[in-house]
């Protein structure tokens, strides 16, 4: 498996991280080193092995259908880079 620059660019795009074109070769190289390391997993016989779903098995916790949160819009918005009229404001999303 070898990752080329266009794959690196695609992954960066999926992850929404801007990578300048000149940085792509090094990024692809890093990917290849890391993935090369990960490839070792192919040596393991995993036939019939269940993938781990929870490391400490227990029953999934449940909550009751009760409203005891919310009602604090000011706190929800207090850290926002741009909040207006009770909303989070972001550059226009074109549908």
């Amino acid at each position, binding site marked *: 498996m070898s990752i080329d620059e266009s794959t690196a660019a*695609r992954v960066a795009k999926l992850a929404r991280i801007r990578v300048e074109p000149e940085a792509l070769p090094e990024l692809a190289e890093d990917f290849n080193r890391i993935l090369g390391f990960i490839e070792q997993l192919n040596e393991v016989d995993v036939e019939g092995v269940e993938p781990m779903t929870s490391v400490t098995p227990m029953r999934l916790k*449940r*909550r*009751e*259908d*009760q*409203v005891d*949160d919310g009602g604090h819009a000011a706190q929800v918005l207090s850290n926002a880079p741009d909040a207006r009229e009770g*909303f989070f404001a972001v550059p*226009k999303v074109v549908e």
Partner: protein
Amino acid sequence: MLDLTYEAPKVKTIAGAKHDWELVIGMEVHAQVSSRAKLFSSASTKFGAEPNSNVSFVDAAMPGMLPVINEFCVDQAVRTGLGLKAAINLNSAFDRKNYFYPDQPAGYQISQLYHPIVGEGEVLVEMGEGIARRVRIERIHLEQDAGKSIHDMDPTMSFVDLNRAGVALMEIVSRPDIRGADEAAAYITKLRQILRYLGTCDGNMQNGNLRADVNVSVCLPGQYEKYLESGDFSHLGTRCEIKNMNSMRFIQQAIDYEARRQIAIVEGGGTVDQETRGFDPDTGETRTQRSKEEAHDYRYFPDPDLLPLEIEQAWVDDIAASLPELPDEKKARFMTGFGLSDYDASVLTAEVEAAGYFEQAAEGRDGKLAANWIINELYGRLKKDETQLADSPVSPAQIGQIVDLIKSDAISGKIAKDVFEICYTSGRDPEEIVETEGMKQVTDTGAIETAVDEIIAANPAQVEKAKQNPKLAGWFVGQVMKATGGKANPKAVNDIVSAKLGL
């Protein structure tokens, strides 16, 4: 219980320029779970609150926040599954669907891709008397709703409200068993009806509590049967998905448009692109929503903040035991138990409240008569006032009284309408109205005879004419009715007039 049998409706063909075509439609319906709190947080689900007020730190995906599932939402999904005669999966799990969007605060939606809570079921969609489409349900899974982006408040910015973010949705996925725009609308109607019976979703389409993604493709006659036989989708045409429809009318328009568009493409020698499309209500057209960004890659994986959801069979059994009677069964029982027509039974079971109203009114009485009064008189009157059954000033017991008064010959059907109107406007009980207003019909033949005698004695000329022309006996009947204030039993009056005139 009587199991009504149905025939499948004929598939309508659509004439293209070259061939006839058939529609194949599958739907993904997003139904908001009726719950007080959200799926993974304790914030309220109430509609129409101030922006970002029904938002917990979990819903806003603040750093370090974790989901804990609302057990009631699980209950509601199971209930829905049982209502759709579906398999319940005792082991299900939550996955993250990763994508960036401002109203998706965590950058992922918690959903169930790999192991949904509900498996295969079905919905019977009636398309006429004795005709119904059986639509197979592929799965139902629980997932989070997104927030809302508002694009028209500012020229350069979009505004995000997270009140809706994290509200529980059931995504109900059908097989492509729907074969026309009318069937699609009927399917949604039926699904909505069942959900409302179950109490798991209020079905409010206007508020977006029930919305559908509609997958539409066209194929040549015969191809669909090949697909059914083999399960191989390649027999069908390429489908397009019309997203986020929350109006029955728009769904039908969109399907009609999409069918014409796809047929034109294929007949023109082109190929349909598999894509997501949106419906524009202004133009009645669908258009591609292929955004500038590359194709989606949602990178689903099991949510590590949650463990697999294991439920116990006994719990499912308890829910099953508490299921209400569902529309199909109720309709069958109304037809067999009360002798209602298919139409009347359908009308009265459309909403569970109406069915309940009817049953209260008809309890121990002539069901057909009660149905007539509800459907014709009550519904008509409510419609005139633009009122709902829930706000009806006439109670089921009062309809019952009217039925009883008619059946016991205490009042005529005509008087009954007057009694109904008084009851409707004043809220007074029909029995009391009849009593107080002296509207009881006179069946005492002695009293009627006296009245007839008086009129005959006072109108010798009319008597002569009537003897020549028996049709004029009606004049005497009218006079008697007038004299008795309409309370005389019309049949008794008729009989006595005829006898006295010697006709």
